[in-house]
């Protein structure tokens, strides 16, 4: 198991967002975290990325507890993420966005960059080549020098995933990757994620509302409702589970 969530609870003031949840993700799995609005999915993401500290319980990544690590340290351990509402660096080019992912992997110091040491030049060249390779993989190399914000929504989503891959992760967290995309873009995205999983040796954990997308993509799903696990198993079984249906119906009812 590459990621193990061990009996995690998260309280905000008096509200319990996640209650004693445990699950495990196997290497190279595409694992879906689903559930109605307010089920605690995003909270779970923020606990894994270190943005929230769990009230109790542990996150264990590759056998190592992640307790007390800051978000940027967790990224360096090999967990990368994308955001629900794409958050690219708006003033920077597509290439620079991806280069940020190499920030902690470029081996040169502050003074070396000031005097432009040979190692600086070598390392900058190396990470630029790597970044272009990743962009090329997503078919975005020709946009490298465009401003990230000038791209279409679907392209921005790809750049965001490329940027996350630049941190060289083993586990990739995708927060509603299909949100705001049209059916053909969603289709294309699904193909890319599956392909990247193989080519980059990735484990993928994703939050998604689009059940069709989940059904196509995920090897396994966990359904949360009001912070509690109500189902864990194959996606097509989830859709038939009475408790899951009840939870979603309740959600529709509320809307």
């Amino acid at each position, binding site marked *: 198991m590459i990621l193990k969530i061990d009996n995690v609870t998260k309280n905000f003031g008096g509200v319990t967002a996640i209650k004693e949840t445990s699950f495990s993700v196997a290497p190279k799995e595409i694992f879906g975290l689903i559930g109605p609005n307010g089920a605690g999915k995003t909270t779970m993401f923020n606990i894994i990325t270190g943005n929230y500290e769990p009230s109790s319980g542990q996150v264990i990544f590759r056998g190592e507890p992640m307790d007390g690590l800051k*978000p*940027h340290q967790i*990224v360096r351990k090999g967990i990368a993420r994308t955001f629900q509402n794409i*958050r690219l660096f708006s*003033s920077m080019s597509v290439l620079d966005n991806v280069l940020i992912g190499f*920030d902690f992997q470029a081996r040169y110091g502050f003074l070396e*960059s000031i005097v432009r040491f040979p190692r600086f030049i070598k390392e900058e060249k190396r990470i630029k080549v790597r970044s272009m390779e990743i962009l090329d993989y997503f078919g975005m190399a020709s946009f490298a020098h465009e401003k990230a914000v000038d791209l279409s929504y679907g392209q921005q989503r790809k750049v965001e995933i490329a940027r996350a891959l630049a941190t060289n992760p083993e586990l990739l967290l995708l927060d509603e990757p299909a949100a705001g995309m049209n059916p053909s873009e969603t289709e294309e995205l699904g193909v890319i994620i599956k392909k990247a999983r193989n080519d980059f040796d990735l484990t993928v954990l994703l939050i998604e509302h689009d059940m069709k997308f989940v059904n196509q993509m995920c090897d396994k799903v966990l359904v949360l409702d009001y912070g509690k696990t109500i189902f864990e198993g194959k996606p097509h079984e989830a859709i038939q589970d009475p408790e899951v249906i009840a939870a979603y119906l309740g959600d529709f009812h509320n809307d």
Partner: protein
Amino acid sequence: MGITVSKNQWMNVAMVAFAMCFIVFSSNYFDEYSVRILNNIAIFIILAVSYNLINGVTGQFSLEPNGFVAIGAYVTALLLVSPEAKQYQYAIVDPYPFVMTLHANFVVALLLSGIFAALLALALAAPVFRVRGDYLAIVTLGFGFIIKILAINNPEITNGSLGLNDIPEFSNLYWTGGIAIIAVIVILNIVNSKFGRAMKAVRDDEDAATAMGVNTFKAKTLAFCTSAFFEGVGGGLLAALLTSISPDLFDFFFTFQLLIIIVLGGLGSTTGAIIGTVLVIGGSEWMRFLDEPMHLFGYTTTAMPGMRMVVFSLILIFIMLFAREGIMGKRELKDFFTSRKKGEK
């Protein structure tokens, strides 16, 4: 790509060479008044490009320059004023014995000025960057006041509100201009490295930067300390240009001037900071008439000292409301050349 880079490099070399020729030419042929303004411009270029690093590039709103410039000015002054001059200057109380023994050459004095300022920045970074960026503004503003209060209340070192006089006039265009060139190159090299990218990422979206593994606290602290270092050095140059300094010189107005410069030039653009300096420092000389009595349609108004400040603050509000990007936006000079190249392709 390879060709563009070397073309850029050639352009950089050409610009540095041009700046050097201009320095040599103007120090030999310009009159004293013009040289004085050029010295001011050179020092303010150092201050503005470094202030822009924390405010514009990193997006952390700091109001620190007056404090760090004051530190630099006092360190340099204490190290340069001769013991004989110190002997008769301290009119309020006798100085501490160690003050009399302080002495160093100009280069060491400037370096120490920068280092002192940077160390203070490091000490401030810990409390300030633990919370949101905008607290930085108030803490640094308060810090500027504290520096002034310290300078006034420790006459054994600073000679209190009388300040220090007879600082040897070591600053000339070769020093101020030369260090300005170095400061611009160093800052641009930082901006165009992973450190600068991390700083820009912090400005654009701090949470996303963290999610890319960037240690945002480190990026902010690095920008803050680097800008403090050059502000300290600039303060040292200023002390050795003015030959006398006092606590009043470094009040908030000093910071305000720099703020206008970088906002006018375009927050985040080093080129913009340089253009802004020339416009504001030059313009401020030109606008001197505003503070003096005016003759309009046969009437003479009374002198209105401070009118320039009113105009400057209106300009600042105006830029923010109607031209937020300033002159350069976040672009640099080289961006104009590269974007043209892309069009050809």
